[in-house]
């Protein structure tokens, strides 16, 4: 079970940082890894879980929660969700802090002009 959780964390953590421009970018890679590389489920089941996640409210890519749950139960669901949202969220938090610190003390218009975007380039 631990190895399954580690595999989930590694897979979704990697997808998190690859999801530039939104999470739909990594959907084909997710399908390839889950169905073809790890053989956790058949293509039909992946499609069904994706449809289920789309039908539910909330940000898309909750399919990661369902895949985690299918592979390793509730711990799997939590690990997959945290791994998909964690790394990119941490990066965003750090970038937004850098952006706010570079702004005026009042914080007024802190994110305007190019200062913010250039600070987040690193």
């Amino acid at each position: 079970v631990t190895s399954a959780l580690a595999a989930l964390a590694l897979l979704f953590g990697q997808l998190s940082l690859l999801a530039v421009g939104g999470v739909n970018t990594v959907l084909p890679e997710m399908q390839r890894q889950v169905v073809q590389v790890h053989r956790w489920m058949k293509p039909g089941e992946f499609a069904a879980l994706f449809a289920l996640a789309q039908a539910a409210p909330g940000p898309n890519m909750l399919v990661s929660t369902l895949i985690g749950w299918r592979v390793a139960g509730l711990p799997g669901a939590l690990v997959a969700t945290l791994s998909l949202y964690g790394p990119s969220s941490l990066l965003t938090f750090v970038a937004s802090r850098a952006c706010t610190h570079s702004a005026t003390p009042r914080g007024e218009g802190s994110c305007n002009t190019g200062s913010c975007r250039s600070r987040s380039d690193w």
Partner: protein
Amino acid sequence: MLPWARRMLVEQRRWLTGPEFTDTLALCQFLPGPNVVNLSITVGARFQGAAGALAAIMGLLAAPVAIVIVLGVIYAHFGQLSAVQQGFAGLTAAASGLVLSMALRIAAPLWRTPVGVAVAAITFTSIAVLRLPLLLTMLVLAPMTILLSVLTRP
């Protein structure tokens, strides 16, 4: 979800001005991860630091994650019934149609530039036909397309 977030943040709560929202969203789209999640983290961090960011992401995700897990449990219990399976066939078709329509909408402006069409075709072949890893595809294509866009800049 983003238009709704804009209405709430800019018009109803007045936490951000219109231009602030646009700039914040630009940063969020540049960074990896779901845009609306990144947006909530940025706004949360701005007003209450780490605690605010954590509260924002928990507020955004907790209920949907709980709902989707409940749906998954229901699916596992009743997924074998033929009526449920037929329903799912329809749901899957609808979800595929949604993804396809989004892909076409994104691809639409490309048709005017031959380079754009070529890059889209290479990416599609690599990912959908050859089923190569995304990381490899991105490492090869990203520098190539940046170079191409610099060279073909009018």
